[in-house]
C-alpha cells in the first residue's frame, strides 16, 4: 500500500483525481497500470476502484440499487451474491431499501467503499476512507485492506490519520504545496524521522 500524506491544500486530492481520470492535468504525464490516464481515462476507470474524499452516492437510489447500478455499469456477473457479501461485511441489510439521501454519513461511506471494491479491482485509490466510520468499522476496514494487499491488491491511500497509515503502508510520499518532499519505503522514512507524525511535521514545516 502506498500512502500519500500532506497538509490541507497540499494537492493530495488533486493528484488522486488526476491519477484516476477524474481531472485532466495541465502539464506533465500520468500513467496507471501502464495506461496513459489523459489519453484513456475510461480504460483506467474500468480497472481501478475509487473511494472519493466526499461520500456522494446518487441521492435517489437505495443502497442496494446503487451497488446494483455500479455492478451493471461494470458488467459484473453474479451481482446479487457480490452485493450480499458487502451488505454482510458492513451490516447494511437494514439499509438495503433506504435511499442514499437518507443514509448517515457513515453508511454512505460504507457504500462508497463497497462500490469501489465490488468488481474486485487490482488497484484502488482511497481518499480518507476511514473518515465517518466508527472505530469498529475502521478496524474492520483496516483488516480488510491488509487482506486485500496480502492477496495481491495495491492501494493508494490519502489520509490524515497517520497512526492507521503507518500500520498499513509500506511505501509513502509526503506532499507539500504541490511538491513531493519525501518519498520511499515507510521503514526508511520513519527511520529518518522517528515517527511518521514527527517526519510529517518536520517536512511540512520546512516546506511551509
Amino acid at each position, binding site marked *: 500500500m502506498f500512502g500519500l500524506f500532506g497538509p490541507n491544500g497540499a494537492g493530495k486530492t488533486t493528484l488522486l483525481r488526476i491519477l484516476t481520470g477524474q481531472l*485532466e492535468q495541465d502539464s506533465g504525464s500520468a500513467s496507471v497500470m501502464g495506461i496513459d490516464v489523459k489519453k484513456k481515462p475510461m480504460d483506467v476507470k474500468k480497472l481501478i476502484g475509487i473511494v472519493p474524499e466526499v461520500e456522494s452516492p446518487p*441521492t435517489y437510489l437505495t443502497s*442496494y440499487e446503487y451497488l446494483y447500478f455500479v455492478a451493471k455499469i*461494470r458488467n459484473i456477473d453474479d451481482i446479487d451474491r457480490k452485493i450480499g457479501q458487502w451488505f454482510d461485511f458492513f451490516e447494511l441489510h437494514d439499509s438495503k431499501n433506504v435511499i442514499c439521501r437518507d443514509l448517515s454519513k457513515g453508511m454512505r461511506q460504507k457504500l462508497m467503499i463497497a462500490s469501489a471494491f465490488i468488481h474486485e479491482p487490482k488497484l484502488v485509490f482511497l481518499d480518507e476512507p476511514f473518515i465517518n466510520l466508527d472505530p469498529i468499522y475502521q478496524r474492520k476496514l483496516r483488516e480488510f485492506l491488509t487482506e486485500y494487499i496480502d492477496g495481491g491488491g495495491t492501494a493508494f491511500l490519502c489520509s490524515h490519520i497517520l497512526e492507521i497509515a503507518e500500520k498499513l503502508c509500506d511505501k509513502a510520499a509526503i506532499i507539500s504545496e504541490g511538491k513531493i518532499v519525501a518519498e520511499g519505503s515507510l521503514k526508511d522514512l520513519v527511520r529518518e524521522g522517528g515517527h511518521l507524525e514527527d517526519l510529517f511535521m518536520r517536512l511540512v514545516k520546512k516546506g511551509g
Partner: protein
Amino acid sequence: MRTLIRLMLKEELRTHTTYSGQRFFTFPIVVFIFALILALFMERLLVEASLSQLMLLALASAFIYGIGVGSFGFMGRQYIEKRYGTQNYIVAMPSLLPITYRKTFLGLYIRDSIFYILLVLVPAVAGLLVASPFTGFKITSILFFFVAAVLSFQIGTSISFFGSILYNRSSLAFITFTSVLIALVILGGALKVFDIQLIVPALGFEFSLPPFAADYQSALLFLTVSLAMIFALIGLSIALMKFNFIVRDSRHESILPKYIEMFSLSKSYKNLVGKEFVDLRRSGTIGKMSFSFILPLVFLSFTSWFVNTGLGIEVGFNTVFYGAMVGFLGVLLYSWLNNVDSADYYSLIPVTVPQVIRARLIVFLFLTLGISTAFVVIISIMNNEVDILWLALLVMFITSIYMVVMTAYLTGLRTNTFLFDMGIMGRFAIMSFLPDVCLTILSFSLRTDPLFSASSIILVLAILIGTTIILLKGIETKWRRTGFDI
C-alpha cells in the same frame, strides 16, 4: 436583510462566473445587441406578424422566464442538504446561524428578481430605447412595455415560488394548486365564469396603454391587481414555508433492475436511462417538469385566446405555431433533467459525459413525446384545425429533438449555467431564434398561401434534421474530455 441580499447577489454572480469566467459579464451586452437588432428590423417583421402578436410573445416569454427562475423553491431541500456535491449556499445558513429559512428564502426571491431583471429585462429594454430614434417607438411606450415585462416576470416568479413551496409541504397541495390554476384559466377564459382580466393583469396593463390603447384608468387597475397578486403569492409562500428536517428513513422497493429491463430498447444506455427514470420518479421531478412545461403552454394558448377575444386584437396563432412552441419549450425539460441530482459520482465509474448526455436525450424523448403530442392534438381540435395536424406534429417532433440536441451540444450537463456564457448564449440564440422566426412567420401564412407555406416549413424541418444529426455526432467530440464536475 440588505447585507443578506448583497451577499446572495455576490454568490449568484460567482456561481455563474465560476463556469464561464469574466465572459459572463458580456451576457447582458448580447441581450442588448439582440434587442437592438430586433428593434431595427421590427418594421420588416411587422409585415408578417402584428405588433400585438410580438408583444404577446414577449410578455409570455417574460412570464415563462419567471416560472423558471421562481422554481428555486423546488430546490429547497437540495440546497439545505448540500446536494450539489461539495457546494453549499447562503440559503442553507439557518442550519448553522441564528437566521430563519423564511428570511433566507425571501432573500433568494429578491435576489433572483433583481439579478435576472438586471441580467435580461433591463438590457433588452435598453436595446429598444437606443433603437428608438431609428424605429420611431415612443420612449413612454417602451417604458410601459418594461413595466409590463417586469410584472409578467414577477407574476411568473411568484406563481412558481408559491407552487414550489406548496410542493415542499405536500404533493397533494401542489397538484391541487396547479389544477386550480389551469381550471381558472379554463373557467375565466373559455367559459367566462368571471372577469378574465383578473388572471392576466400584466397583459391587460400593456394592452390598455399606447400604442394599443389609452385607457389609463384600466392600466392603473391592472397594475394594482398585478402587484397585489405578486405580494399575496410571496406572502403566502413565506408564511407556508416549512422544511421537514427530521431524519427520514424512507424505504423504497428496489425498482432499478425492473426499470433497466423496461428500457432495454435503449441498449447500451439502458442502465443510465433506467437510473435516470428512478431519479425522476423518486425526486418528484416529473411533477416539477409538468409544472414548468405544461403551465407555459396553457398560459400561451390561453393568452392568445384572451387577446383575440377578450381584448379584440387579432393574433392568428395556429396549431403549427403551437407545434413549434412545444418544440422550443423542450429546452426547459432538458434543463430539469440536468437538475435532478449532482452527477459527481459518475466520475468514479467508467461512464463518460457524452454517454450521460445521450441517456438524458433518450429520457427526454420517452418523457415528452406523449405529453407534447397530446397537447398539439388538443389544440388542433380546439382550433378546428385537424387538417394541419400532420404538419403541426411533424414540426413539434423535429423542433423538439433539434432544440434539445442543440442545447445538449452547447451546454452539456450544465444547461442553466452555460446558457449565461456569452459565447454559448450567442450561439444558442442564433440557433434557436432563426428556426423559431422562420417557423412562426411561415405558420402565419399557412392559411393565405398553404402550398408555399407548407413546403417552406418542410424545407426548414429538413435543415433542422440535418443539423440535429451533425450536432448529435458533435456531442462526443465536444464533451468526451470533460469531467463531471465542470
